[in-house]
């Protein structure tokens, strides 16, 4: 293997260590109460309805957030693709919140979307609500609406950045050709702009999905307690007062790492596809 391969393997080593230990702890080879190789714990945890609800809920929430952020990114990229001052300001504003930590976004979301938060207060002042209890639950709700909105808001700047870049570097020539051949704006969008855009955005969207699904602090502050988001469920089992249950967390860790690995593979495969388009 050439130098680059070894270097990258080194970077991934901590993940490998984590996976190895989690495998050992999940199968009774290590950790509290380890009694030798057994698949009992794995079977039990994977057989729990609560675990699958948690997993599916987490995936669905992250997917919805990614979709919203992606749609907004496409709209912003297409709407503000010119070089006027307005367009450039809009693009800068779209990207500005990029370094805002998940924790800050979640904190703001709690303050704004909570039962007695800003939105509720504005509605009460306008006479639409009688009190905090009347406010529809947007946080700690089964639908995860508050969490989805917050994750969508957080991931939008990154997807917008990628979308702007994609439009700026690809497709301009194709679009000009299409225009000169008489294609109308909707046709140009449907046949050229959109295909170029979604292919360029796809890898970033997969990455965003992985980040959204893996965020602990966002889920801890905004997600319901039933079903629990996977990161929160993992920590709960890991710190369970019943020491025998703590090993469950490693099965959940493996589940989360498998999801992440899948996203990584998909991401690189998509980038490979996109690069072939460039040639």
């Amino acid at each position: 293997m050439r130098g680059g391969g070894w270097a990258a393997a080194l970077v991934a080593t901590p993940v490998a260590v984590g996976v190895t230990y989690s495998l050992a702890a999940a199968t009774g080879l290590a950790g509290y109460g380890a009694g030798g190789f057994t698949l009992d714990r794995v079977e039990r945890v994977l057989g729990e309805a609560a675990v699958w609800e948690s997993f599916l809920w987490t995936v669905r929430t992250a997917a919805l957030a990614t979709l919203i952020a992606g749609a907004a990114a496409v709209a912003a990229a297409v709407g503000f693709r010119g070089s006027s001052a307005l367009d450039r300001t809009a693009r800068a504003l779209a990207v500005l919140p990029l370094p805002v930590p998940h924790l800050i976004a979640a904190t703001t979301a709690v303050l704004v979307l909570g039962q007695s938060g800003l939105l509720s207060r504005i509605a009460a002042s306008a006479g639409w609500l009688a009190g905090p209890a009347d406010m529809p639950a947007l946080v700690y709700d089964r639908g995860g609406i508050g969490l989805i909105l917050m994750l969508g808001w957080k991931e939008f700047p990154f997807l917008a950045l990628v979308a702007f870049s994609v439009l700026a570097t690809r497709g301009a020539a194709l679009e000009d050709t299409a225009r000169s051949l008489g294609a109308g704006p909707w046709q140009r969008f449907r046949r050229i702009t959109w295909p170029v855009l979604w292919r360029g955005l796809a890898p970033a969207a997969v990455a965003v999905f992985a980040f959204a699904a893996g965020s602990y602090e966002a889920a801890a502050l905004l997600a319901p307690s039933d079903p629990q988001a996977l990161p929160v469920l993992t920590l709960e089992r890991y710190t369970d007062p019943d020491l025998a249950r703590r090993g469950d967390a490693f099965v959940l860790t493996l589940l989360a790492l498998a999801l992440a690995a899948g996203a990584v593979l998909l991401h690189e495969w998509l980038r490979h596809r996109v690069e072939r388009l460039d040639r």
Partner: protein
Amino acid sequence: MALGLLAVSAAAPFVLLALWSVGRDWFYPAVFPPKFTAESWRDLLSGERLLGATATSLVLGAGTGAFACIAGLPVGRSLARLTGWRRHAGAALAFLPVAAPPIALATGLQFSFLRLGLGGTLVGVLLAHAVPAIGYGSLYFLGVFAVFDSRIEEESRSLGATSRQTFFHVVLPLLRRPLADAFALGFLVSWSQVPLTLLVGGGPVRTLPIEVFSLVQSGQDRLAATGALLLLVPAIAALAATRLAASRTEVMAV
């Protein structure tokens, strides 16, 4: 109108957190705080809790930024020398610690940290933060070196410079901006980290995000908002100082 929406969306956290950090007796259903107080900011500047946590976070952030540069650069460079599917495979490996949920990394690694005697120590938390940061740094420098014109290195070598001389006197000066960017990237990874600090740091290591997190969870809105603003401003400043142009990040994003 869309422009206004973007502006409001971008400014919302700053404005709202600022309001919440100085509002007094701000009870439901008031839309604006009736009174203001600098109490929590005074507490912050004179008190131990948030200030100590901020100092810890700054130290960790600087260390993590350094890791992202020092380890990320050589890894990214050697990755950029690969081509085709090998490069994608290498990038996938470097991406793993980035995409892995920090909570999963933390649970998987805590045992190792405990065995090494690093549990509950600042060094331990620093190394834990370095895990995703080096991944980010590697991917970033992969992007940088993928478009880096290596002919300048060849010229330097052909004029008689050794590899070392070429690297330190020709390549490195050209990489000042990318190094600053990578440092900011690593800094941010550590600055906003919660799960890794929670598990590897245990109780002893209190960082600013940990403090803010527990303040929000315990419903102490004003203090939480103050801490959150403290967390937010350097993050924006760090990125604003190092990379303003969107074109710069095309290299990384695409």
